[in-house]
């Protein structure tokens, strides 16, 4: 794993206007109901009308993000397709469960079953782009996207190029309720931009998709490190930095997964130059993909969009090294290091 990995293109559909051409100039979207929903684009540019009708929401969100990412990277057929999703298409899973009950197991429509399969989005991307190469889907909560990313890095080290790697996640009203029964969300309703001012048990929920094309061809943004740490007994931060030969002082920005949950936010305490992002995306299994998108955008723009962060003191650039540290309800902890490839900049 001594190779270099560069982001060639990226795309995100999220609760913010990230799919627009100039995302950082877009206004901040806030919610009051403790649950975010994606700002969905006009799908007609990406798929035929019958697909738009037939496909459920997260399939459209995932497929569209992937297709736009491929376009942004200037490629047509990726060298491999690797995704992560914690829950897949929840809408389809819920619908099939209900139809089994409602129709007493007879005359069922197979579509929700097929679409509930976790690798359905991967299959659709492969089909649409005629990509017959390596194709894999990871489904492991806060390690779903990150395992996909690790797989992509391995693929590049093994000699492959232009790996499409991404994540997609959906929240439904029903699943929001289910998780509320085991304390995932705050009991009190808060405005999403006040998230960090409410250190109480639980957080706010979200969803989104983000895709990247990763290759060893130099570009502006280098993915310089990735480490997953499962249920750590002590902070892994110093070990991670040491493994990358970098000091904490050399980190210009730490994008943190802080989410206002008093049960788990202590992991983020003491981080310097901290920039939390969950007031933009909400919490979900693959929120790490949103963080990577945000970090890469900040590196490219050399600025943090101040209008998205009215509640924090926004660090000013220049930004060379950005550390991302995120965990999912205290179990899956992830460190990512992004570095500006100054030699590439004109």
């Amino acid at each position, binding site marked *: 794993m001594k190779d270099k990995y560069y982001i060639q293109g990226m795309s995100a559909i999220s609760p913010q206007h990230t799919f627009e051409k100039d995302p950082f100039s877009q206004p901040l979207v806030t919610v009051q109901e403790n649950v975010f929903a994606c700002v969905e684009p006009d799908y007609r540019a990406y798929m035929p009308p019958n697909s738009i009708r037939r496909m459920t929401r997260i399939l459209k969100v995932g497929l569209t993000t992937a297709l736009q990412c491929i376009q942004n990277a200037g490629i047509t057929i990726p060298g491999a397709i690797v995704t992560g999703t914690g829950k897949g298409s929840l809408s389809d899973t819920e619908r099939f469960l209900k139809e089994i009950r409602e129709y007493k197991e007879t005359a069922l429509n197979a579509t929700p079953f097929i679409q509930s399969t976790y690798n*359905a989005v991967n299959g659709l991307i492969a089909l649409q782009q005629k990509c017959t190469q390596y194709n894999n889907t990871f489904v*492991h909560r806060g390690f779903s996207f990150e395992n996909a990313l690790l797989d992509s890095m391995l693929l590049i080290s093994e000699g492959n190029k232009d790996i499409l790697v991404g994540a997609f996640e959906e929240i439904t009203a029903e699943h929001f309720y289910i998780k509320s029964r085991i304390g995932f969300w705050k009991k009190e309703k808060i405005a999403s931009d006040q998230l960090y001012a409410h250190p109480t048990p639980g957080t706010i929920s979200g969803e989104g998709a983000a895709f990247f094309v990763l290759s060893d061809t130099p570009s502006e943004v280098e993915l310089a490190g990735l480490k997953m740490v499962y249920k750590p007994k002590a902070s892994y931060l110093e070990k991670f930095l040491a493994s990358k030969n970098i000091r904490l002082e050399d980190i210009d920005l730490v994008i943190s997964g802080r989410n206002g949950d008093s049960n788990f936010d202590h992991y983020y305490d003491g981080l310097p130059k901290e920039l939390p992002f969950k007031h933009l995306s909400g919490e979900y299994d693959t929120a790490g993909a949103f963080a990577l998108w945000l970090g890469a955008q900040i590196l490219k723009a050399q600025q943090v969009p101040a209008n998205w962060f009215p509640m924090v003191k926004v660090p000013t650039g220049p930004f060379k090294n950005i550390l991302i540290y995120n965990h999912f309800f205290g179990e899956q902890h992830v460190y990512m290091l992004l570095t500006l490839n100054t030699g590439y900049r004109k």
Partner: protein
Amino acid sequence: MVTAIGDDVAGNLKSLRRQQSGVGFSQHIDTIYKDVLPAAEVRHATVTLQGMAGVAGKDGYTRTTLLGLIAMREALADAGIATASEEPTGFINASTVGGMCDTEKVYFDVINPEKEGDFLQYIDTLDCADCTQRIADTVGIDEYIATISTACSSSANALMFGARLIKAGLVRRVICGGTEALTRFTLNGFNSLKNIDKQHCRPFDQTRNGLNLGEGAAYLVLESESLVKERNASVKAELKGYANTNEAFHPTAPSPEGDGAFAAMQQALAMGGVAPENVQYVNVHGTATISNDLAEGHALQRLFGDKVPPFSSTKPFTGHALAAAGGIEAIYAVLAIQHSIIFPNLHFSQKMEELNITPETQLKEGVPVSNVISNSFGFGGNNASLLISKYEG
């Protein structure tokens, strides 16, 4: 491993040799198809599995987790690993529907605000990570944890990912495979696709009419050569080649010519540096669906020409255990090499008219087997082939 034909590897081998199928009718799932659609169920009730998994009386373990834990404990013991945490170890698991087997029973209580009760502890078991983490936590694995879900090729992909982690030098030991419990959800899913036969499945037969679902779990301990030598471990076989390709053809059907299957097998052989004529046995995916066997058969003929080696589907024994199938069949490939044995394809009688080839129908003992291809193909066009070879040390 645990399947409908045995609670461990020895039990599976015994049933394979006796040509005893595990396909019957389900005792444990709540469905109107209980006595209509055959399935290969692990015969024990979930409470019995708790004891076998060493967690008797402990709540919160789904059937998926328990099957996995039973297989994991056997894999560790068989590899001579007393304490998993002694060596930084990865666990790459595979699952198609996680703990659906248990959550589907309580789901409508879970979404009903009027209902309270013990079922709440199963809320978080629906996803695929739950079983992986419970198994990992119980035996003390924490270095690399992942769950893969690519439908029926899931555990073959888990083996591949694990092998690649070792090759990249990230870890020296990875335990890979998958676990799957029968569910009403999956049974109805495949039935709505008209993919389930009301009779015993008949892979590669002209009259085949679909699959029988199965359940089980299987894990293989992969180690780097350096670790093997360091601890003087006995090596059962080598994972010499593998490939993952995509059909890019249709969400649930392969291309009739078997393009993805052909490419997967060909690339696996190329990686292992093994010529087609040196393959002694192919454990085919062979689900007995109309489209799979046609595509896979064409792929075999394209790859091997008129010298197709003995091949068989062992799914008439175990049913199609989806995410566990690749792991189960990888172990069968190892058994074929260890015991010089080729397993029969049960219930075959009539050659497919589109093909020139027929599967092996007899149990063959005393046949030297050095290279086995194991195929796993799935929804989303996911194809995976493994080349498992005799270890020449």
